């Protein structure tokens, strides 16, 4: 137990002292995961809207498949993307492997099912009468979809936060695709993994506490912003 306390103190010390490397790692984690969530959202929210509003064959099956992929193992996603962007892969020419971009791509793929699925269920929670009203009042189909997304904003943002949580806390894809290169692709999770293996348990724990606090702060900020809106 004393280790935990010590780790806590050290984490505070690292944060208070603004330890250059820790800050850099934390910011990199934040930047990579935020980019992944924002980019994935830009795709998933409209696509989720389309899946919800359009009726087509296999819609139920598609939604089931999406939901199944909520819990896809992060290493599998890492491996899958790795195959695509490694030298011999179809996108090998872009030289993306072991870059922050590769990690962003990996995390995007990882959280796409969550964002899609939760967007769809958020929209399903909105009364059909809202869409009818919007259309009746002269909205185009896209304006109506946007109106409903706005109505479902709390649930959509919850999806966003879930996605962010999964992205910033995963280690498999970041390790395989980023390679944990110091000062370049090292993020909080890969750093924790490394420090643990090195036996630097206190530092690893401190980084873990920073990771959790980061997720907490983001959550609070987003919810606060939402209340005001």
């Amino acid at each position, binding site marked *: 137990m004393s280790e935990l306390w010590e780790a806590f103190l050290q984490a505070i010390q690292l944060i208070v002292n603004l330890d250059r490397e820790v800050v850099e790692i934390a910011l990199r984690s934040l930047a990579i995961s935020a980019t992944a969530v924002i980019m994935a959202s830009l795709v998933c929210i409209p696509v989720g809207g389309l899946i919800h509003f359009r009726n087509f064959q296999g819609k139920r099956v598609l939604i089931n498949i999406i939901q199944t992929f909520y819990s896809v193992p992060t290493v599998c996603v890492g491996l899958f993307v790795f195959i695509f962007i490694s030298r011999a892969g179809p996108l090998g020419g872009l030289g993306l492997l072991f870059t922050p971009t590769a990690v962003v791509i990996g995390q995007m793929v990882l959280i796409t099912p969550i964002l899609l699925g939760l967007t769809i269920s958020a929209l399903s929670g909105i009364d059909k009468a809202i869409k009818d009203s919007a259309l*009746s*009042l002269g909205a185009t189909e896209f304006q109506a979809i946007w109106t409903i997304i706005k109505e479902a904003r709390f649930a959509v943002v919850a999806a966003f936060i879930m996605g962010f949580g999964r992205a910033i806390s995963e280690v498999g894809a970041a390790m395989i695709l980023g390679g944990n290169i110091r000062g370049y692709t090292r993020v909080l999770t890969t750093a924790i993994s490394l420090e643990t293996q090195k036996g630097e348990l206190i530092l690893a724990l401190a980084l873990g506490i920073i990771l959790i606090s980061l997720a907490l702060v983001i959550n609070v900020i987003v919810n606060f912003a939402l209340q005001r809106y």
Partner: protein
Amino acid sequence: MTLLKTVQLGYGADCKALLRNITFEVERAEVFALIGPTGAGKTTLLRLLNLLDTPTSGKIYFNGQDTTKSTQLRLHIRRRMAMVFQKPVVFNSSVYENIAYPLKVRGCGRKEIQTRVEEMLEITDLKGYEKRRARTLSGGEAQRVALARAMIARPELLLLDEPTANLDPVSVSKIEEVLANTIREQKTTVIMATHDMPQGQRLADMIGVLMNGEILQIGSPSEIFCSPSNKEVAEFVGVENILSGIISEKDGALVTIDIDGATIEAISEFAVGDKICVIIRPEDITFTLAKETSSARNVFYGEIARMTTVGQLVRIEADCGFPLLGVVTKRSAEELNLNLGKNIYASFKATAVHVIK
């Protein structure tokens, strides 16, 4: 000039069609009420007219244009009308944002939106509510927001689906007042669904009676009320004294109708042997204590089975071998000393009898 016309509109699978053969026209600046019991298909019809759903068969013409042509045209036409739903639907934002919505989706400027919203707040008596969250309003207030929102883009056609159902009487009269003013001042064409016959009579120029997915009769409120086309319509619009019978004799236009042993004389085009219904308006029945000579062709002896006082009037149900309801003033009831069980003569003219299928 005709604003909206439907031709042979149908909706739903053949065996359980929700609407069949709906054909009617609505003139510009006319208030058309669709009256019918719950489940008759009023909402389904309004949704088709608002182009939210597509009819299974038939056509809708708006201002002479066939609305089925293209999605683009449907949006264009839909923007010339607006619908208020039965259950008040408001967006989860402020009252101001709610009312501004139709102008926003049409890409209007900030200034214009502000003046128009203020104007609508004034008209619907919602001033001071603009910052309130629409979800926190009462049913009546929310419905007024929905009404303001529907009218802000100055639609040529306003579709109202039971706009006052489930509201308290004060909210109902407030909404009716707003509607009546708008109709008068902006010459908006209105199609409203209601199951409230008196409301239809108060607001409508024309009434269409919709039952089981079919329009049974279209006419002015007095036409519908005074000469309903059949028994179902008569019962729905609240006509009293509907009696079933068979025509037993015919002499020119004068017919003798057999009703449970009693005979009624009336004017009708129906032939001998036809099964018909007769309607006698309670106001057309005269009660007397003794049999008097008069021009009334129908005189029945009976006793008073029930008496109810409604304001200054007394409704008297007489049992003359068949039930007959009449209305007299309180004063004449007192002067004739009418009370339960008293024997009386009820008389009415042959021309007061309305014969329908």
